[in-house]
């Protein structure tokens, strides 16, 4: 009940005219970056970040999180109407969304996607409302060893469950850690890893990495394909929208299962992209209408969309209560929190009640605003897709360059941004995941500090990570996530081989 009271208080903060206005702006900008190829939620949020430094933290986070919701929705629009995923997490939506739209039912496809997306987001927010303050309370008892164990668990789940080749994930993660260590060491004060470049003393900013990896990298991947936009009618028939939304509960089981997958993948940082693919795969395996998948099957839209949004929303739960972001965009927002002078983690729920509950209340409102706005603006943003790529591409390069420069007024950052762009292109092409790299840059220092503090407490003995039931469980869970998937894979391969040998 305490939570409900706090939530109501949050609504009084979120429901001011100023904040509703920020939500509308945020959602519209979000749909814009979601629709444009090469710009996505992580970029959009980092671009906006320097502009929020003068704002109240609660207003700033409402703007940024609304942009996130908008981007999640915008990505689905292009997936369905143009077969071009605007966001990596909406790739799975193209499998059935585009065929349905192509067969003359674009409104049904869009309404199915938005309806299930809203349901997924709602599940994520309810989960946060119910459990965030409880998790924070538990986390208050955490010492450095427990914190390091939680970080370890988070990174292990990336490697074990992220869906990319494990060693490539590990390399991506470790590069992020190394980049986080560049600059002045917070514990000893000594300068590390500058490789003789004095300017690197200030460190490598995560915004610079995000601009390059996700902006330039994505652009280079997008330019390879010849861009043929086939226009499907983008007019929205409102009666059809209502008919579709009323019919959604028929798929109750798919909705619930996909939301559960999404929430799980959001909390353990598997991220929305992995969640949507996993949910689509599971829906296809267990559906009675399996043969219709890939040809415009509603379940094939519901499953990835629900999971995508449930994961995107619940990624904020570990960010708020533990200080561990569950997705790349959440990592950028967490970077913002630290810049605004807030300390993400359990203390937020005690020291910054207004901030936390204002944000949670705004998540309910922001998603409603997003559904309405995205339906209203589908024709406008669909028209934007007809702007030729050769006009959009230089604009995005300029935006990324200015965005990287404005972080700390440094030209070196712009050059590094281009370097990250090439790296992002290579990584995307070869299926190295990018999210772990960004996550590690943002929380690398904190993870390292936690490790070194625990070592100080135990005078150099690793035994501290097995000193009580809680920390032992966390570490063992992390190890299990790390080693079990490859073992299962091996068992699966052996099982498949043995009947053939007989």
């Amino acid at each position, binding site marked *: 009940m305490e939570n409900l009271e706090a939530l109501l208080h949050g609504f009084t903060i979120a429901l001011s005219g100023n904040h509703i206005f920020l939500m509308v702006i945020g959602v519209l900008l979000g749909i814009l970056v979601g629709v444009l190829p090469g710009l996505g939620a992580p970029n959009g949020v980092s671009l906006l970040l320097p502009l929020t430094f003068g704002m109240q933290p609660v207003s700033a986070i409402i703007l940024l999180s609304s942009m996130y919701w908008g981007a999640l929705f915008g990505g689905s629009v292009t997936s369905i109407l143009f077969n071009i995923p605007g966001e990596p997490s909406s790739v799975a939506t193209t499998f059935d969304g585009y065929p349905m739209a192509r067969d003359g039912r674009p409104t049904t496809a869009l309404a199915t996607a938005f309806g299930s997306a809203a349901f997924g987001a709602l599940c994520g927010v309810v989960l946060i409302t119910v459990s965030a303050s409880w998790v924070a309370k538990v986390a208050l008892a955490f010492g450095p060893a427990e914190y390091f164990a939680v970080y370890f668990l988070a990174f292990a789940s990336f490697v074990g469950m992220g869906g990319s080749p494990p060693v490539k994930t590990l390399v991506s993660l470790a590069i992020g850690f*190394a980049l986080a260590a560049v600059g002045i*060491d917070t514990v000893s004060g*000594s300068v590390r890893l500058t490789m003789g470049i004095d300017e690197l003393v200030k460190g490598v900013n995560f915004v610079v990495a995000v601009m390059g990896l996700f902006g330039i990298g994505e652009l280079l991947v997008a*330019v390879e394909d010849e861009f043929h936009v086939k226009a499907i009618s983008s007019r929205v028939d409102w009666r059809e929208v209502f008919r579709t939304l009323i019919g959604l509960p028929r798929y109750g089981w798919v909705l619930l299962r996909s939301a559960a997958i999404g929430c799980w993948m959001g909390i353990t940082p598997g991220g929305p992209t992995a969640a949507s693919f996993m949910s689509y795969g599971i829906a296809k395996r267990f559906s009675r209408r399996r043969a219709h998948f890939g040809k415009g099957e509603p379940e094939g839209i519901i499953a990835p969309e629900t999971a995508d949004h449930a994961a995107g929303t619940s990624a904020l739960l570990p960010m708020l209560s533990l200080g561990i972001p569950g997705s790349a965009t959440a990592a950028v927002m967490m970077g913002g929190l630290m810049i605004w002078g807030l300390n993400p983690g359990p203390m937020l729920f005690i020291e910054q009640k207004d901030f936390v509950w204002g944000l949670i209340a705004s998540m309910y409102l922001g998603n409603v605003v997003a559904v309405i706005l995205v339906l209203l603006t589908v024709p406008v943003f669909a028209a934007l897709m007809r702007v030729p790529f050769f006009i959009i591409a230089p604009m995005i390069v300029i935006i990324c360059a200015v965005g990287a420069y404005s972080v700390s007024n440094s*030209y070196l950052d712009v050059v590094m941004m281009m370097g990250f762009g090439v790296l992002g292109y*290579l990584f995307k092409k070869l299926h190295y995941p990018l999210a772990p790299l960004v996550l590690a840059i943002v929380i690398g220092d904190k993870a*390292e500090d936690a490790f070194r503090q625990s070592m100080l407490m135990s005078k*150099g003995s690793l035994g501290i990570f097995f000193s009580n039931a809680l920390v032992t469980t966390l570490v063992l869970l992390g190890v299990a996530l790390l080693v079990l998937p490859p073992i299962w894979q091996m068992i699966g391969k052996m099982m498949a081989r043995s009947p053939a040998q007989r």
Partner: protein
Amino acid sequence: MVSRRSLETATAILTGAFGAAVVVSSLDNGIGWSAAGVDAGTFPFIVGLIIFGGSVFNLVKGWPGNDYAVLNPSELKRLAILFVPAAAYVGLIPLIGIYLASAIYVFGALSWHKRGAWFFAGIAAVATALALYLIFELTFQISLPRGLLGEALGF
């Protein structure tokens, strides 16, 4: 034509070199245990070893069976058409400043792709520079680089 194998190899060498540089550089900060606890270089040292080891693994794993093409000549050409001007743009910034560089970049890109549309490209170029100035310099008071040329002109 670029094969998956050569791309995998290039990336693994790139990450491996970075890992090796991290390992070597972290030795300067000291690794291991001292009176102040874990030395500053320890964590980067371990991380560098992981990067290096993982890169060697990826290098070996990326070799067999990956001799199919992932980039055909026309894709490579499109990549170059996007990347080379973008890199030139970034290279121009310290010389002539971000405003002029952006305008030239937009003008060049548009008039290249849509030959003859000089007027349209010109308008877009001026609009880009103006938009940057209005949004960043005036609204958010973020001063963008003016380059050597800007300094010489006292802008």
